[in-house]
């Protein structure tokens, strides 16, 4: 996983906002680089990148993207994973994507990662493009100062 030592501070005005919204950051999703090359070589259009909010979720064992992003990026499934849900276990498809975590404007990349397989779920209703789970956070140093309304994340 690529690492960039950029200190990140979320744009939250205080502890109340942080408590309500959680640690949100800017996410960009693209098709994998290898798929982009394939599409270009076949003179096919490359889906435009998607941007939106991601939420740090230390309770999630893995990261997840919104299922609408899968349709937009036009990526085919490359795997299946078992998800534990309130209703029991179920199978869910895995999709290849290129994910970047960016800082606020001018949008410097904090992290760029290629996923050979990431699952998708109904995140749009939560106002999210992505959940950042412990798979990505396993490479991160995170400081959550709830009282001070301050968070930082570095890779």
């Amino acid at each position, binding site marked *: 996983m690529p690492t960039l030592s950029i200190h990140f501070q979320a744009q939250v005005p205080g502890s109340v906002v942080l*408590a*309500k*919204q*959680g640690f949100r950051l800017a996410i960009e999703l693209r098709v*994998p680089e*290898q*798929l982009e090359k*394939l*599409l270009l070589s076949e003179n*096919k259009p490359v889906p435009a990148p998607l941007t939106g909010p991601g*939420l740090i*979720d230390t*309770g*999630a*064992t*893995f990261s*997840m993207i919104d299922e609408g992003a*899968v*349709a937009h990026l*036009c*990526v*085919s*499934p*490359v*795997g*299946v*994973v*078992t*998800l*534990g*849900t*309130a209703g029991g*276990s179920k*199978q*869910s*498809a895995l*999709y*290849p994507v290129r994910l970047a975590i960016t800082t606020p404007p001018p949008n410097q990349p904090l992290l760029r990662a*290629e996923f*050979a*397989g990431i*699952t998708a*779920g109904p*995140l749009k*209703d*939560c*106002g*999210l493009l992505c*959940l950042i*789970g412990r798979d990505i956070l396993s490479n991160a140093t995170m400081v959550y100062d709830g009282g001070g309304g301050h968070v930082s994340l570095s890779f």
Partner: protein
Amino acid sequence: MTNPCDTTGSETLSEEVALYESKRSEFLLDYEGKFVLIKGSEVAGFFDDESEAYKVGLERFGNTPFLIRQVARQDAVQNTPALHFGLIRAHT
């Protein structure tokens, strides 16, 4: 490439998953920890990492569904409890 935008879900890969499950014990003998690439009834190869398997899968099958699975004795169950219990929207 029959469908350049087949984003359908896990049921699409049911044949590949069934093949993997039927051959898991056999795969474990020589390829434990490797990543197997399966398309339909074809085992297309074993790779050291997922990205290499994806690259070969794209070259051979295009942007269509295929299975990449790490050969392991057990598959972990993954969880997103906050999402599944509706807690993410609790304060919004």
